[in-house]
């Protein structure tokens, strides 16, 4: 290792690698990316293209070869459907709530676990366990815990003597989405807490101490010393959680299949329902295209936002 390091510092007459003019550097990049490009073209690109074409057809799951071209009808139907508007609304609520709760809970956990205490390593490891649990298993255990008669949630509420009675969480259109949200946040907050814990290592002690000397309260210290450092990480986390929320399928499907009366129907659940329950692949593909567009818009907004902040910081 030290040899390598020494050699690395030795003067060299060669141009930098990326600008190399030797025989290999012209084709090497393409050879390096070709396998993955081909792989993705076959298993992602081609399927995506066929979905795009499907979205302009009426196609039955049972007889995909008998597709019938219908132009923009599937999109037109979506645009004029009030049910689809409520799917978009549910997706928006679910996504925003996941972002807000997963990140704020993750940040709370990270702040709690940041400073040294006895058993910190163990606590940090244990808190991430929900993240390692398979979603289908998580859904199964939460369905049981939320069971109206025998679920531990209602037993606990009864013990606390709250006048709630037997609440059937997943069958109640007002409670099902919060229940699914709770499950989701339980599963994903450890991820944000792990990532934020790492980001907190970058917080400068001097700035923090300087703020403390000025007699700033905890919140001000956070605002001055901590937030600016972790803010890019929070933005990136928000992007990740948003994309995951837009695509999350197994957890919701196993718990409610989008019910009751569509209360937990997000875009992906709607896509699956149209494609595999109603067996209309064309309609499902149109839903997928709408979802993909939304995800792309979110990503562009993220990049635009981060570049703007970077530029603003650069000017400072």
């Amino acid at each position, binding site marked *: 290792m030290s040899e390598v390091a020494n050699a690395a510092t030795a003067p060299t007459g060669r141009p930098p690698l990326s600008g190399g003019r030797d025989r290999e550097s012209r084709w090497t990049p393409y050879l390096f990316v070709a396998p993955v490009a081909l792989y993705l073209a076959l298993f992602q690109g081609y399927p995506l293209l066929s979905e795009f074409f499907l979205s302009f057809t009426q196609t039955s799951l*049972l007889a995909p070869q008998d597709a019938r071209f219908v132009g923009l009808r599937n999109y037109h139907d979506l645009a004029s459907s009030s049910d689809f508007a409520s799917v978009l609304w549910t997706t928006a609520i679910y996504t925003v709530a996941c972002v807000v709760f997963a990140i704020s809970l993750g940040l709370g956990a990270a702040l709690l676990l940041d400073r040294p205490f006895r058993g910190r390593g163990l606590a940090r490891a244990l808190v991430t366990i929900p993240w390692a649990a398979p979603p289908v298993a998580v859904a199964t255990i939460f369905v049981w815990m939320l069971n*109206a*008669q025998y679920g531990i949630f209602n037993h606990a509420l009864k013990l606390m003597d709250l006048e709630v009675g037997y609440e059937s969480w997943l069958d109640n259109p007002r409670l099902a989405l919060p229940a699914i949200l709770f499950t989701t946040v339980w599963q994903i907050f450890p991820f944000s807490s792990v990532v934020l814990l790492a980001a907190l290592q970058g917080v400068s002690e001097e700035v923090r101490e300087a703020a403390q000397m000025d007699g700033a309260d905890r919140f001000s210290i956070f605002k001055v010393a901590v937030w600016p450092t972790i803010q890019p990480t929070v933005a990136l986390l928000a992007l990740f959680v948003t994309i995951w929320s837009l695509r999350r399928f197994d957890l919701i499907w196993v718990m409610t299949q989008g019910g009751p009366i569509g209360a937990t129907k997000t875009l992906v659940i709607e896509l699956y329902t149209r494609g595999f329950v109603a*067996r209309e692949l064309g309609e499902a593909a149109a839903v997928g295209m709408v979802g993909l567009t939304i995800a792309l818009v979110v990503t562009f907004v993220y990049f635009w936002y981060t570049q703007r902040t970077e530029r603003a910081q650069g000017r400072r």
Partner: protein
Amino acid sequence: MSKLTRRSMLAAAGASAALAATRSFAQGKTTITFAAATFAEAGRGDKLKAWIEKFNASQDKIEVQPVAISFSQLANTVFTQMGGGGGPDLVRFDQTDFFAALPAKRILPIDDLVDASKYSFQAPDKFLNVEGKRYGVVFELANYQLIYNPALLKGGEPPKTFPEFIATAKEATGKGNFGYAFRATMPERSGFWQDMTNYVYGFGGNWADGKQLTLNSPKVVEAITAYKQVYDSGVIPKGADAATYRRMFWEGKIAMNIDNGGVAGIFAAQNPNLGFKAAPSPFPNRQQGLILTSLSVNANTKNKEACGVFINWVLQQAPQQELQGILGAASVATQVERPKADLERAPWLGVYDAQTPYALPQLVLGFETKTLEIQQIVVEQVLKILVGNADVQKTLDEAQSLALRRIERQ
């Protein structure tokens, strides 16, 4: 680097080849797959697999491999596979799924494999003959009756009318027991449809009259209003799915259930000391639903002849007799006498058998191939009534117009 990828592709290919090899360990045998939800059921699944093993033992060229897919996933899964040109060779289709697969030509006519004149089929066999072609044989026929636990009912007698039924269910609820249970959720939409159809038939209604949809006819409105009344009366364990409440039933915690004879068979197998009884459902009309499942051949199969051999084995006297015994209070493709000893040991078998003249498949008559679509619409709308307290008539009007639009489109 191309070496690298080739190596990884080879590794993957090698892995799948090795796995494929382990799959057909029975060398020289034709393996055909048979997908059914019943294979996944407690009480019946293992016995059915053992029943298939008897066929395998009798053959040296053909092996049938049972594939258990849960009831709620069977249609999604098998239809995707069929649409993609694959899928199991044989499928036990629920009636709605059978009729959905038919117009897409996903089921093979088997007139050349089965000589119908050799067998004395049950009457509902006619539903599997569409436009002069046979698309399978009956696997299971099951009637619906009121199953009750006399220990939980005052006087131990079942209710005869609907108001009596509500009152009895209320009396039996409490101390951790419930008077009744049924399905009312999206994940169990097929079962929900079955339960609801029993109410519709029991109140003298129908989803269609053979020519016109009647989703919003007065009788259907009456039936759904009754369904809603039961849902709201506090006698059912809300949130308990069929797996849970059926278990509760044989644990002695549920007093009444309207369910098919197969379920009665499961209760008897799981708790022989339960002492449950059966009686006609407490509705104004004797008519109830009929479970009709088919044993059909996937049009994508490459082993049509082998499938034929299996189907003909199934139709023989001894396998039919044994199948009927395994299935509970159900009948099979051909008419098989129930052993006297069975009837004496389990009197409920006779009650179920007596329902046969009043049994009607849970299909939309005249719109059989659209049943699955209509089911989806009706279930979504009725949920609005049950959990969203929407007006019954208005919501069913909406269901009717949605269903009409869906049919017109196709």
